[in-house]
């Protein structure tokens, strides 16, 4: 079986889409991310990063969400 390349959402270049594999870590932040619809299997597009490189804007399920890079790092994706 071909191994898929796992990276985090923070590594995804602006303008590219990625599919969520899982949200790692524990506590309120990963939970909030999942509640906002970032669950395994969903496609996310990274739109852009803010002027100082952080936070980033992503699009999923037809809406836009902003998050910091260290939050994006807990989202494991594949392209």
């Amino acid at each position: 079986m071909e191994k898929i390349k796992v990276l985090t959402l923070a590594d995804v270049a602006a303008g590219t889409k990625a599919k969520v594999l899982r949200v790692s870590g524990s506590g309120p932040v990963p939970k909030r991310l999942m509640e906002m619809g970032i669950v395994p299997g969903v496609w996310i597009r990274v739109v852009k990063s803010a002027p100082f490189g952080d936070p980033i804007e992503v699009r999923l399920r037809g809406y836009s969400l902003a998050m910091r890079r260290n939050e994006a790092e807990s989202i494991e994706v594949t392209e």
Partner: protein
Amino acid sequence: MSFDTKENTPGTVPANGHSDTTPEARPLLIAIAGNPNAGKTTLFNALTGLRQKVANYPGVTVERKEGNWKFDPGRPAARLIDLPGLYSLDATSLDERLAREVLTGRLPGLPKPDLIIAVVDATNLERNLYLVTQLIEYNIPVVIALTMVDLAEKRDLKIDVEKLRSMLRIPVVRVRTREKTGLSEITEAVRGVILEEREADAFWIGNAGIDASQQADEIHLSLSDDEAANRQIFARYKFISDVYQASVGTFDTERANFSEKIDKILTHRFFGLLILIAILLLVFQTIFTWAALPMDLLDQGFGALGETARASMPEGILTDLVVDGIIAGVGGVLVFLPQILLLFLFISILEDTGYMARAAFLLDKLMSRVGLHGKAFLPLMSSFACAIPGIMATRTIENKRDRLATILIAPFMSCSARLPVYALMIAAFFAGQTVFGFISVGAVLMLAMYSLGIAVAIAVAFLLKKTILKSPPPPFVMELPPYRIPNLRTVIQNMLTRAWLFLKRAGTVILAISIILWALMYFPRSQAPVADESTAARVQLENSFAGRLGQTIEPVISPLGYDWKIGVAIIASFAAREVLVSTLSIIYNVGEEENEESPTLIGAIRGAHDSGGAKVWTPLTALSLMVFFVLAMQCMSTLAVVRRETNSWGWPIFMFVYMTVIAYAAAFATFQGGKLLGFS
């Protein structure tokens, strides 16, 4: 806060909330719940019309919008509640937790709702349905109001409402609040549920396999384990995907995505920041220019009111109290109402268009350097006009400590009440001077005062976040809502609601402190015979408690370069900063009708000598006083609002003490340092 402690006592609520009373005994309670920006308030307004009122939830300062809704001619009107927006019932922000408390019937004084109208944004169906999947587990009947259908149609997004209804097992109604259609259908659906006394058809999406007889409340609380919680969320979204597939099918969500196009400019790396600065400049410019006339009118109005009151009442203490204490004191604060209203107006517009979230997005990195949240930017910015709306705007900040840190530094932003003080000092001691031959010293000083406030705020925020308000870096997960043209009615209503809450909140404290300060300056009555009226005022002030207090604190303030007269003016200005000017006028015997530009007051200050013949005021004194005013907490209205917003006396007292200490230290350093460097 009252609902923090309640988390540990689950399951005390009877299944339908009203098993203790019969449904006839009290009006039905219907709650409108949904994601932020889903259209809840618009629907609420459409259903209640003008029959609504705004109050606070007990113990907290989140506004509670409640109205009467005559949903059935044969029954008493129902109480309709517009809840704050929430994404999930497990959410953490103040607003969201409160909404959850209401929905689960845990809020003291409010029964469990008899029915929930879940507002679902048709253009953002999946995320909006997440909350719905939680709501239908609560054993309360739910009716879905599908909003923004006009926008969905524009994008050719077709939703099979019949499918939604059958899969969710609850009524689903399309509403077009702007055209007022669908309102009778929603009424019909609600009436159907209520009159048939249909039981809630609770079914468990998130907990397939868990004993369905268990209360949903308990399940949510007992499954704190992350893995279980994550599985639950996943199961809900799995269910939602199925519903979406069946009722919408495949749809390209990226079609007609106008907001992203607008954001190409508005959140552009470079232009985004420029535009943000331009917008803020425009807002402040407008606030200052538009507010000038109504503020003058109010000022004159209160003056006239005072005169009328004096003329129509017998001479005596009571009249003096009403005129000089109550009317002058409360009026002095109310004069700022036009500015506050305009600021609220712009905040409402910026929020309603969706721009506010972009501002937080653009600036989060800068704010996080000092440990603050991107959302802290707006409250701080507002505080340049007035700290009160600024502090009230901190509610969107989820983390309590971040919110407190923001509240505690907000008053360092130089508000408009400091302007008269700066203006007087500059006019008296730095007028017409330039540096490098062309830059006016006044402008440099003005800029320096604003910068000083910002610098100290940053330092204090940094310290607070490292010490007493230490908390992990706040998470920043924030929706960037689609841009929308603001609804005039909502905007104006928001503005009026906030202004009214400000008046109610600050009003009583302002009244009380006005009376106290008046009494300090009024008693004991001076008996000495005097030549004319303004001398009488001066002699009275000198001998009053405030005057004596000024003389008592003179040793403390003389290292700052102040004599007792300045001390009295500072004491008086704790009511509101701009009072300094009028108090100095009384002390220097130049009559009450003076303002910061009046030559006589300036002349009097410049020419004042102490008993030894030395000049009281020097440019260094003026500078020291300006520094003191930048940093000191001299605003009773702000303290009153902090007391309400934090629901404690501890924080306003802390704020008062630490700011005054910093102000003292900085003014001390300015004056003594300046003297050492040879200035005077």
